[in-house]
């Protein structure tokens, strides 16, 4: 076997109050995709941040191509050939593709003072071409689609003569077709002899793209195995450290009457003649490619956008939902895709976040009774098992899973009668995912219907009683739980 490209030995890193990594070993061979998995807080992102030079190591050595190196800054890591592509795009939206790719390393002219824009354009086009992409180097990055932006990032990595490329949850916002394109690119990089470190929560992807997989838990290296010999169940067990039965809890009960009904809803350029029903006591899954209109539909139901035509009936009565305020009054709840930006008040305490949406219901006479506030907040913290040192803890310090529970608590406090969840478990570790699924199940068992938008096929197939598939703003197909499978849904989503 060839010499490893990278060897990390005995690496440890602590922050005030928490040990992020403890004596971790890791290696990477040229031409391999080494997947890194673990729950949130397991240490994956700390590991790659150490490798990228964002933090210095406390202990341990890095050996690159047989030479021990010290990675003490981002620039140093880049010089050693380490490139990282993060979940949050690290591009400058107002600048062009070429400017982004060569940022900080622009070709010069005029005695080194000016940027040689023509050379920059040429180099960028070459790099993108080698990835099979034809993106205009002069296009503004903000005008590109998400997968295109990702390609620009990969091109940027190539321009830095990277030998190790780290992908941090790259498929979070991608749909099936785009993920396939990304994997094709990764295979191209493999063929060039690069080493790829790939982090993902989507375990089914590991089988497709990975060669080896390393499991971290609580900052420790648990096991490294080849993908061929690993099973998903075993990986989950290694990640969580315990058996996880019933990945998708389902207590099915008979369907109730119609709670939400959309008839021929259209919105110029986004939704075309959408009709669907949601009954009490059921979970309706909304599947489809990114951009197929699922979130747009949710926004229309919740009153954020107003449709051009069509009718919406909430709990049997026609409703004109013209704002989130009206929607909330009608008993609708919407957990947005981006909980940090739109769902939470980061600098406010947990108790505040929980009562805010329901504030007028809880305190109708404008006066806030501190005792009642505390009691209500505590009730939800207990019921949903939200891990927080106190009710006053600022929400920004909670983990992703607990933050999502706070958002759920917020809407539960409003006694909403219909819930719309947009990617409810994105970016949440396996243990917390299960808890949220269980909470959804409890909710539905009490009769409250849920519309669940999800891009994770197992979640859609496992949790939904019925599935609508969207394509290009239309309903492409409808499946009951027993007749749904991955191929059929995909076919509908892609349009076959």
């Amino acid at each position: 076997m060839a010499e490893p490209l990278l060897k990390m030995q005995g690496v440890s890193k602590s922050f005030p109050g928490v040990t992020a990594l403890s004596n971790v070993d890791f290696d990477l061979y040229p031409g391999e995709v080494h997947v890194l998995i673990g729950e949130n807080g397991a240490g994956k992102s700390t590991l790659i941040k150490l490798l990228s030079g964002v933090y210095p190591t406390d202990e341990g050595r890095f050996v690159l191509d047989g030479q021990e190196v010290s990675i003490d800054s981002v620039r140093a890591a880049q010089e050693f050939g380490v490139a990282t592509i993060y979940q949050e795009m690290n591009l400058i939206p107002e600048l062009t593709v070429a400017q982004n790719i060569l940022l900080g390393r622009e070709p010069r002219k005029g005695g080194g003072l000016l940027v040689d824009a023509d050379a920059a354009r040429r180099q960028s086009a070459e790099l993108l071409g080698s990835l099979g992409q034809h993106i205009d180097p002069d296009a503004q990055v903000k005008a590109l689609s998400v997968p295109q932006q990702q390609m620009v990032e990969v091109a940027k990595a190539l321009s830095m003569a990277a030998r190790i490329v780290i992908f941090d949850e790259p498929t979070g916002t991608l749909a099936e077709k785009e993920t396939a394109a990304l994997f094709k690119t990764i295979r191209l990089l493999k063929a060039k002899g690069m080493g790829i470190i790939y982090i993902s929560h989507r375990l089914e992807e590991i089988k497709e793209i990975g060669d080896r997989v390393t499991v971290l838990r609580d900052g420790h290296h648990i096991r490294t195995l080849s993908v061929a010999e690993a099973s998903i169940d075993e990986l989950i067990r290694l990640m969580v450290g315990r058996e996880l039965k019933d990945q998708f809890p389902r207590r099915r009960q008979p369907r109730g009457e119609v709670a939400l009904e959309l008839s021929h809803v259209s919105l110029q350029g986004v939704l075309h003649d959408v009709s669907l029903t949601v009954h009490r006591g059921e979970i309706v899954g909304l599947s489809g490619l990114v951009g197929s209109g699922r979130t747009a539909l949710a926004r229309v139901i919740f009153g954020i956008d107003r449709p051009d035509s069509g009718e919406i009936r909430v709990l049997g009565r026609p409703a004109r939902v013209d704002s989130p305020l009206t929607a909330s009054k009608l008993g609708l709840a919407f957990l947005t895709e981006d909980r940090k930006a739109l769902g939470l008040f980061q600098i406010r305490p947990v108790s505040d976040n929980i009562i805010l949406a329901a504030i007028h219901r809880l305190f109708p006479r404008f006066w806030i009774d501190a005792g009642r506030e505390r009691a209500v907040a505590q009730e939800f913290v207990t019921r949903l098992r939200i891990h927080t040192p106190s009710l006053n803890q600022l929400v920004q310090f909670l983990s992703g899973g607990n933050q999502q529970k706070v958002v759920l608590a917020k809407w539960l406090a409003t006694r909403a009668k219909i819930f719309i969840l947009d990617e409810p478990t994105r970016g949440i570790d396996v243990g917390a995912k299960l808890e949220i699924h269980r909470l959804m199940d409890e909710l539905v068992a009490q009769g409250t219907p849920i519309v669940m938008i999800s891009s994770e096929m197992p979640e859609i197939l496992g949790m939904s009683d019925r599935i609508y598939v969207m394509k290009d703003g239309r309903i492409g197909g409808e499946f009951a739980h027993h007749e749904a499978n991955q191929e059929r849904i995909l076919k509908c989503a892609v349009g076959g």
Partner: protein
Amino acid sequence: MVRLTAKLRSAFSGPIIICLGMIGVFSLLSENFFSLSNAVNIIRQASVLALVAFGQTFVILLAGIDLSVGAVMGLTSCVTATLMLKAHLAPVLAAAIGVGVAALCGLVNGLVHSFLGLNPFIPTFGMWGMALGAALIITEERVLTGFPATLRVLHDGEFLGLPAPLLLVAAVLLVLHTFLKATPHGIATYAIGGNEGAAHLSGIRVRLHKTLVYAFSGFMAGVAGVLFLARSNAAQAIDTIGYEFDSIAAVVVGGTSLMGGKGGVSQTLIGVTLIATLRNGLNMVGVNLYLQLVFIGVVLILAYVTENQSLFHFLRELKRRLFGAPTSAEEA
């Protein structure tokens, strides 16, 4: 034909249209407005603001703000005047030291913001107080006059038939524009304003860069202070107070975004021209001095709206809100 109008429309941004519109209206209302000598007047009046606003542009491109420039300008002019009067230094040397002091103030602003991580409002606001206080102390709250008039050439002089301030501003504009659009450091400025984290990860020394930009803003305030001294031929600490807000207004009206990463010095020049033309025009037309302020406020709003939102969209939204389509967002 359609493409031509589209191109024309994109080249003529809102503020430019308003500017042209104003020139048209004032020319009709006052016979003295549309003349060469008046144009020269406007340029001279606007040049000080232009210089300060250029420095402010850089800071705002970083998604920052510099509230100290008005006071720093005053400090420079007072220092320069004092050095000429008390220490009998040559005017050029005195001016150089004055500008140096201004740059130092900017440097402190930058260091406190970049390395101590404070919101730029804070150090620049504190610097405003300190610079004003220092200027008052140096001048002992008096007006300084009677220094050699060498520097006046900066304001009153003419080269090749063009007023000196115009040449100064044009030269500075050219250099700064090229810097921003065509040099790595200029692009880095946009990068930091657009996505500071990404800029850092690309190897740009963000903290150093930000510090230098604030120092530059101080430097430009210093240069503007010297020009101001040349114009007024007297130094008084409080004379320049107000330029900080005017410079921010000029930058924003011109089209540079307060969020950073978008805009530039040529846009700022348009903003400056708009404000200066408005003031001059209102004067020419004989509008009550006090009423002028009202006009300025209204025009500022209009200029912003037409730059950043289509005027039609704004008016349509206004109509919708006032006369209500039944889609009201909130109920009692």
